[in-house]
C-alpha cells in the first residue's frame, strides 16, 4: 500500500509546531532518503536523512558488537541542543532536533507519542 | 579503437568531452534507434580530428557538402562533383574550392556553421539513440570545409539549445554545491550573458541555490548552466563542506611549516609495507 506522505508531513509539522523547544523533525528510510520532513530553514532534507541513516546504522552496530542489545534511541547532545534518533517501525527512522532548553524527559515522551501516530500512517 | 553505447548511459555532451580531452581522431556515428541492432534508424556522422570537429553529415555518400553548396546556389551539382574529383586526395574540398577562387572565406565559414553547428547541435536532443566511435575511420575530404571547431564549443551551443534535460537529470550538480573555476583568468570559450553571471560566482563561496536566488533564476536553470560549463572543462562542482575544510587546512599549514601536514602526521614505515606485501603474496 502506498504511504500517505501528505499525512506524514502534516503530522510532522504539527509535532514541530506544537512541541515546545522542538526545532525540526524528519522521517527517513533506513538507507537515508527523506519520507517526510519539517526542518529549520537552511537544512537540506536529503543530507539530514543520510546522516540519520548513517548514525542509526552505526548505533545499531555498536549495540550489537558491544553487546548493548537492540537500539531504542540514539542521541547527540551539543552546546546548542539535542538530536534524537528513534527507530520507527521497520522501514523508518525518526529524527528530532530540539534546542538546549528542552527537557529531555518531556521530549522523549512527546517523541514516543509522535511515533505511535506515525506508525499508524506507515502501517 | 571502437566504443559503442547508449546515449542514456553516456550522453553526447560526455562523448564530446571525452573525444576532446582524449584528442581523438575518427568517426562518431549517432543512430536514432532504441536498439543497437539493425534495422537502422536515421544515422548521423561527425568526424573528429585531434579532438576537434571537422565535419558532420546525415548521409553516408560523402555528398553532403556538395549538395549544401548547390542548395545555396554557390555551385552546381555537376560542377562541384567534377571539381571534387580534381581535388587532391588529402585536401578538404572546402579549402580546395577556396584556393580555386570559387568560395571566399566568409562563405566557407557559413558552410561550416550550417554543416556542423546546426546539424550537430540538433543531435543533443536525441534521447533514445546509440553512438559508435571508430578511430580507424578515414576523414572524408569531400565533406570537409577545412575549418574545425573544438568539441566543447559545439557542446556549449548544443546544450544551450537543449530543452529536454530529463536524461541528464541524474548528472546535474547538487543545489547545495559551490562552483570553482578550472581555468586561470577568463574562459577561452565565448559565454553568453547568463553564463557569465554564473561564472562570476566561481569563488566557491555560494551554493547553486544562493546563486539562483541572486540571479533570480530557477534552480534547474543554474544547474543546467553549471553542468554545461563543467562538461566543457571551465568549472567544477565542489560540495560546500570540502571548501570550508580546505580553509582550515590551509591555516594549519601556515601555523607550522612542517613537511607533514596535520592530516598525515603518521606515515607507514617501510618494514610495515614489506611485511604486508609478503603477507598478501600468500593470498594470491
Amino acid at each position, binding site marked *: 500500500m502506498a504511504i500517505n506522505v501528505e499525512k506524514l508531513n502534516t503530522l510532522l509539522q504539527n509535532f514541530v509546531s506544537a512541541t515546545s523547544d522542538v526545532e525540526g523533525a524528519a522521517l527517513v528510510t533506513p*538507507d537515508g*532518503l527523506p519520507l517526510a520532513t519539517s526542518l529549520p530553514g537552511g537544512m537540506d532534507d536529503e543530507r539530514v536523512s543520510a546522516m540519520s541513516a*548513517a548514525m542509526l546504522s552505526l548505533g545499531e*552496530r555498536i549495540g550489537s*558488537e558491544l553487546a548493548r542489545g537492540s537500539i531504542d534511541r540514539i542521541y547527540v547532545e551539543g552546546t546548542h541542543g539535542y538530536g534524537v534518533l528513534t527507530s520507527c517501525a521497520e522501514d523508518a527512522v525518526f529524527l528530532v532536533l530540539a534546542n538546549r532548553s528542552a527537557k529531555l524527559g518531556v521530549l522523549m515522551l512527546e517523541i514516543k507519542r509522535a511515533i505511535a501516530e506515525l506508525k499508524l500512517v506507515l502501517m | 579503437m571502437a566504443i559503442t553505447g547508449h546515449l542514456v*548511459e553516456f550522453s553526447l555532451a560526455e562523448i564530446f568531452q571525452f573525444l576532446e580531452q582524449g584528442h581523438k581522431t575518427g568517426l562518431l556515428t549517432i543512430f536514432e534507434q532504441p536498439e543497437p541492432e539493425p534495422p537502422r534508424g536515421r544515422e548521423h556522422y561527425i568526424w573528429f580530428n585531434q579532438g576537434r570537429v571537422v565535419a558532420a553529415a546525415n548521409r553516408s555518400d560523402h555528398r553532403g557538402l556538395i549538395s549544401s553548396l548547390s542548395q545555396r546556389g554557390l555551385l552546381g551539382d555537376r560542377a562541384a562533383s567534377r571539381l571534387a574529383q580534381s581535388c587532391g586526395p588529402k585536401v578538404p574540398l572546402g579549402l580546395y574550392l577556396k584556393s580555386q577562387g570559387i568560395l571566399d572565406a566568409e562563405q566557407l565559414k557559413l558552410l561550416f556553421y550550417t554543416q556542423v553547428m546546426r546539424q550537430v547541435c540538433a543531435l543533443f536532443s536525441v534521447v533514445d539513440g546509440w553512438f559508435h566511435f571508430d578511430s580507424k575511420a578515414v576523414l572524408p575530404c569531400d565533406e570537409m570545409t577545412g575549418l574545425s571547431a573544438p568539441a566543447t564549443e559545439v557542446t556549449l551551443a548544443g546544450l544551450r539549445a537543449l530543452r529536454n534535460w530529463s536524461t541528464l537529470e541524474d548528472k546535474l550538480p547538487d543545489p547545495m554545491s559551490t562552483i570553482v573555476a578550472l581555468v586561470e583568468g577568463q574562459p577561452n570559450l565565448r559565454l553568453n550573458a547568463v553564463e557569465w553571471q554564473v561564472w562570476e560566482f566561481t569563488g566557491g563561496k555560494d551554493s547553486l541555490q544562493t546563486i539562483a536566488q541572486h540571479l533570480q533564476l530557477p534552480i534547474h536553470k543554474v544547474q543546467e548552466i553549471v553542468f554545461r560549463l563543467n562538461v566543457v572543462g571551465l568549472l567544477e562542482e565542489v560540495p560546500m563542506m570540502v571548501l570550508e575544510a*580546505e580553509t582550515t587546512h590551509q591555516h594549519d599549514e601556515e601555523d607550522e611549516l612542517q613537511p607533514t601536514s596535520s592530516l598525515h602526521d603518521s606515515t607507514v614505515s617501510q618494514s610495515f609495507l614489506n*611485511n604486508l606485501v609478503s603477507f598478501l603474496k600468500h593470498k594470491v
Partner: protein
Amino acid sequence: MEIMRLVVTGPVGAGKSTFIRSVSEIDVVDTDRRATDEASLLKPKTTVAFDFGRLQFSPDMALHLYGTPGQARFDFMWDILIRRAHAYMLLVAAHRPREFHYARRILSFMQRRSRAPLIIGLTHTDQPGTWDEENILIALGFPNPDRHPPIVSVDATEAGSVAVAIMTLLQHYSQVQQRNVEQPAPHR
C-alpha cells in the same frame, strides 16, 4: 601497534563492500541497509555509513580497510573517512560509462580533501561493453597518458585479485613516500 588505513571509494555498485569482504580476516563491520533509491536496481543492499575490514598480519601491525557509501548524500562519511586515510582506491565498474562522470566527481572531492596517494581499480572488466583503461582514464579526467594514477583491473570477489590491487596501492604509496623524502615538497 602500527596501523595503515586504506579507503575504498567509488560509485554505487562498483564492488567496494565486496572488495573489503574478500580480503578481510574479520567479519566485515558493515552498515548495509536495504536500498530504496536507484541503487536497488543494481543490488538489494547499500552501505550507509562505512564498511570496515581488517588484516592483522603481525602481532603489532594491522591493515584497516574502510569502504565508503557510494551515494553523494553520504559525502560527510567520505569526508570523515578520507581525512585519516594513508592511501585510497577509486573503484569504477568498467562497463558502466553512465557512472564515469560521477566517479570523476568523487575523485575531485577526495583530491580536494586529501593528498593521500590514489590508484584506480577497474571492476567488472569481464562484462560486455567494457571500456579499456586508456579511455576510462580520459573519461575520469586523465587525458595525459604519462600522468595518471596507477590503474589496475580487479575482481572484487576474488581474494587473490583484491590482494594484487592492494599491493599495487602499497607500492604506489611507497613510491610517493620516497619521492617526498627525496624532495620534501608539501604538495603532490
